[in-house]
């Protein structure tokens, strides 16, 4: 997965570190960091990453609203939504707007890399 670009959206800097460590070790380039939905939308337009990891609960604008805007911009955007225990209703809504990939917190570094690998190989396959 050399050279694929990743944007991390999360309000917790520590999660950024966890994801970035795992992704960088597997050849991904983290091209953008956003700490809320608003920044995510802006950064997306600027950097056009291949994959986005999206937290749900964030200040200013939550992950669901940000995903909606990003999908409106680019319906093919690959968004991996990171949910926590208790986010079941939001996951339902997210599926309605067309998000297909979810990962439940807490995850291990290799887990998230696996999911991202899958998302990307699906794209190149289809």
């Amino acid at each position, binding site marked *: 997965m050399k050279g694929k670009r990743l944007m991390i959206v999360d309000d*917790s800097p520590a999660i950024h*570190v966890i994801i970035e460590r795992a992704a960088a070790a597997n050849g991904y380039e983290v091209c953008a960091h956003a700490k809320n939905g608003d920044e995510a939308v802006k950064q997306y337009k600027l950097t056009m990453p291949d994959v986005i990891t999206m937290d749900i*609960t*964030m200040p200013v604008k939550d992950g669901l609203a940000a995903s909606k805007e990003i999908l409106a911009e680019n319906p093919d955007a690959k968004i991996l939504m990171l949910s*926590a*225990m*208790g986010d079941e209703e939001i996951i339902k809504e997210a599926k309605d707007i067309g998000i297909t990939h979810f990962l439940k917190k*807490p995850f291990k570094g290799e887990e998230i890399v696996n999911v991202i690998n899958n998302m990307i190989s699906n794209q190149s396959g289809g």
Partner: protein
Amino acid sequence: MMSKGFYLDDIDLVKMFIDEWTECLEGLEKEILKLEVHSDDSELLNNIFRRVHSIKGGSSFVGLHCITRLSHEIEFTLDAIRKNRVSVNLELIDSLLLAIDFLNGYIGQLINKLEECKSGENGTIYIEFDDDEKEDSILNGLKQALIQCEKSDKEDEKSVEKSEQEAALEILQSEEFKSRLAEGMKDQFLVECAEHIEKIECQLFSVLNNGSDDSEVINEIFRAVHSIKGGIGIYLATITPDNPDYAGLKELSEIVHNFESLLAIFRDNGMTPEKTLIDLCYEVTDYIKNVVSDDASQECHNVNAGDILEKVNGYTLQLQTTSKNSTNSFVPSVRNSDGKISNIQQKSAVIQSVRVSQDKLDKMMNMISELLIAKNSFMHISSRLNLEYDLPEMSKEIKKVGSYINRISDELQNVLMSIRMVKVKTIFQKMPRVVRDISQTNGKKIELIMEGEDTEIDKTIIEQISDPLVHLIRNAADHGVETPEERLSKGKPECGSVILRAYNKNKSVYIEIEDDGRGIDVENVKKKAVEKGFITETEAGLMSKGQLMNLIFLPGFSTAKQVTEVSGRGVGMDIVKSNIEKINGNIAIESEVDKGTKFIIQLPLTLAVSHGLIVEAAGETYIFPLEYIVETVKIPRNSIHRFNKKYFTHLRGDVIGVEWLSKIFLTGDCETEKDELNAVIISNGADKYAIIVDKLKNEQEFVVKTLDGHLGSIPGISGSTLLGNGQVVLIVNPADIIQLAQK
């Protein structure tokens, strides 16, 4: 049951999370209090929800299940409020606050434990929390409160409270885990009660002292009383009526409840606290204390509960009849107390402030320090232009710009320093409790007098000085002040006094701890030191009183005849001293037998920037921190005398030791031709020493850069710094130097 401990393997990550969590928890309590009135404010709810949610998410990553579980339950409760499934009532808010407090406690423990295991920076550490059962009881309290809220929806306010309490009792009485719960709740309750009482007393104290009519005082007392009530409620709900505590607590609960109503009248009508109220306040807190402490020692309590209840009710009635606003009901009216919220808003409008993380301030301080170094190079260039390039005009111009920048950076530094300043009050506040505890356990009568609480000092210093101060205060109260009988027999007043005093003098902050107790017996110290082998008899004979007194700072030294629970484990004073020296402070003792002891702590205003004197010795440049320098003098060669391989001289009537800096650092021989020698007289609080250097240069600001690794432990050197010309110079540690010179 859940597992009791956790292995954390990525300390850095955990630290990051902890920083996040502390930020999330900050001010959460206040926000939750706002919920009491604004439970329909979705923005407020979302904000609280998000914070708790992010703690939950983070803790799950590092495997801290207890934090995940607790925050999940809090989040669940908040979600119920958000989705309008429950109506918010006092009990619910109380249990939420309890849970948040507990979460705070966990994170506090975590921080402490992480600090303890600094050694294996990136290894795995094992963390164990000891509050499992308490967590269970808190979670249960939260769940119960939630259930009650769902049930009692849309019921009449007055009956809500009653039915809630009864229902809660019924449900909980049938539970099996009750006794286990009760134990956990009891400890929690006792600790909290003591805290709240302290808060009330502190407020009362401020009213008495300043006669302040601030409405915030009533609010604070109200809040504390309210919390006590909540605590009693929860504890009551976990015990059965045949528990020995039950009857007393039931009474107490009624008194506190009525007292709260009384306070509500004051608060809602914006009345100023008057003498009757304050007297009553004291009576009630005394009563609570009585019940609570009796409680702790498992005794029965039959204090005049009826009397107090009567007084509270009588006063309430009197107020109600005289109060113009007769619509005020007897029920505590937190739910409709819009006045409280608007009060807070008004207050915050007056003092506009921004909350900034200390990290940012530290970073800024660091940068300003760099600026100070960079600025010094202007002066350097200016003199080079003049001397080496022969451009005096240019040199003057650069000098002008330099001094302009100098002025700005000075101001910048001052402003930033003032931002970082905190009143010593924040740590002084802990002390009355410390002294009270000791006087109660030892049966001593001690009055703590605090002066200069408004003196300001850098925040990092405040944090570092807290433990040493507590230790010194304990020592003063425990070892210093004698028992009443002993005092009377010595002709002293029965009640001993401990004075805690802070003041500014010469760019330093001084904190003094003074007691009028038995004082330090120098002979005792000498005997002990010889006994323990710190010094030999002959050495002891040669030492001055001040030097002997300073022996108590040696590791492993303790003159207390008896090791007590509170102080005197023989590890104290050396740690106190080293902690104070770590922040460039200094500690000195003055003591006289049977008159008392005074510890004087001298602290720098700030840690980041210091002033120092640049000197040269054997071709090397060094900086002496100004705090340690008494004076600089020229000593004629012929007045330096040599005895037993030691040098000394007369200075203003004193005999002081003389040593060459170059000899101490073994960097070369001293210059011998000169007739007059430059000396820096340094002092560590007890001894003075004249340190001979080749040249005394200028005074300069410097920024301490600590030396790492094996360079860090060179005796006599505390760090390095950069001069304006980029030269690295070593910072001398005068306290070490004196020790080295004496050897």
